[in-house]
């Protein structure tokens, strides 16, 4: 076994070009190896000291570049993320515990490609892309193109995720992520839903994107939401959204929930995510995460 500490991206991708696996916080690797899911990789390159991968920066064109090493604890409080990409902050704030939020990085999350990841649905509705670097190339793919199956990505073994790119937010927009949780902390999503809402100046819906967590082999982008454009956001619309999300979900039954219950509750989460995103688009402040601000898990 070899273990190299990289301090630059070039060092990291050079090591990866000879077969090393990158490790940031390492939780998924260490826990996975311990539970016999897979062996710990023979050769590791630690990327957690590459300071260039940390910053969250806003570009002149309004797009945002989130360094792959941005951890969940930063994402849940970062002003740029909370201000414009609130669903991502909601998701980050719900991950595991304070310790796992400090150790877990967005890049690690994205490359782990779990259909239950809490940051996944937010990234989909926010239109995120991932910047992949190898020793000889850089390419940018949407998260939808990156994720090919549970735990699988289209990235080559020598490609390092260096950043997540978020497009500029439309005017009068808001986003939110909610998940079903049986307790208020230390949870994994049974189901979850993210929504991004943009409003017309008259308050009607300009656009809504919805993505679902843990109801399909990958994060599921709900299709057909463009038909809602121009609608008033009311209970009837929210009911249609819940039904649409439930219809498109293909959940499994497991020890956490039955497929029937998942299908119902993912509709509830979608409805609530859209409502919260719309409220935020209207300028209503709902603190991060929505789960603890209202509804499920609220301290009240």
């Amino acid at each position, binding site marked *: *076994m*070899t*273990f190299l*500490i990289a301090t630059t991206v070039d060092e990291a991708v050079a090591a990866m070009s000879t077969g090393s696996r990158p*490790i940031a*916080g*390492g*939780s998924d690797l*260490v*826990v996975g*190896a*311990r*539970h016999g899911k897979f062996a*710990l990789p023979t050769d*590791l390159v*630690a990327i*957690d000291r590459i300071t260039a991968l940390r910053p969250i920066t806003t570009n002149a064109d309004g797009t945002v570049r989130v360094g792959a090493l941005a951890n969940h*604890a930063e994402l849940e409080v970062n002003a740029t993320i909370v201000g414009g990409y609130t669903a991502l902050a909601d998701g980050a704030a719900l991950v*595991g*515990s*304070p*310790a*796992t939020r*400090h*150790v877990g990085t967005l890049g690690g999350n994205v490359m782990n490609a779990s259909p239950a990841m809490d940051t996944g649905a937010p990234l989909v509705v926010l239109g995120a892309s991932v910047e992949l670097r190898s020793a000889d190339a850089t390419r940018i793919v949407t998260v939808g193109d990156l994720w090919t199956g549970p735990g699988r990505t289209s990235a080559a073994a020598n490609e390092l995720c260096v950043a997540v790119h978020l497009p500029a937010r439309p005017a009068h927009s808001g986003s939110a992520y909610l998940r079903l949780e049986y307790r*208020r*902390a*230390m949870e994994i999503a049974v189901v979850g839903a993210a929504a991004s809402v943009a409003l017309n100046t008259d308050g009607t819906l300009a656009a809504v994107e919805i993505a679902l967590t843990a109801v399909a082999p990958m994060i599921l982008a709900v299709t057909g939401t463009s038909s809602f454009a121009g609608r008033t956001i009311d209970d009837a619309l929210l009911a249609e959204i819940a039904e649409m999300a439930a219809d498109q979900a293909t959940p499994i039954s497991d020890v956490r929930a039955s497929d029937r219950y998942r299908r119902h509750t993912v509709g509830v989460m979608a409805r609530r995510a859209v409502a919260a995103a719309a409220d935020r688009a209207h300028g209503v402040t709902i603190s991060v995460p929505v789960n*603890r601000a209202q509804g499920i898990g609220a*301290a009240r």
Partner: protein
Amino acid sequence: MSTTVNLRVNGTTYPVTIDEGRNLVSVIRTEVGLTGTKEGCDDCECGACMVLIDGRPVNSCSYLAVQAQDREITTVEGVMNGSELHPLQRNLLEEGGVQCGFCTPGMIMSATALLAANPTPSEEEVRIGLSGNLCRCTGYAKILAAVERTATESAQEMAQA
């Protein structure tokens, strides 16, 4: 394969020769020889193994020891002020926040990180800050009270100073 790395634990540097795949808790408990850090689950679900790395809480069961080299690791053994109990330790005892004590070291580390980042947390912030540490004995009420009392006392001291 093994490698020799320097681990700085509670201000002391320990050169340790370890397999690269070892997790931090096992190295702290065995090679470094500090057994205050406990192991209750091995997959980030109980918090008994909580240590601080550069001041941030980390489940040491799920963190490679080699990744911690040349960083500042703090364990429960590093919390006392010299020979005096840290106010958090004293308050946990006086409020009754310790029963079996197995979660206590991890709880202390999470609370230390929380109070360093947020010296005057709300009750909800304490609850979220300690939510990665399971306690089966106390129902948490007295742990909550001890952390809140520590914050209050610290704020009073700051105000007087």
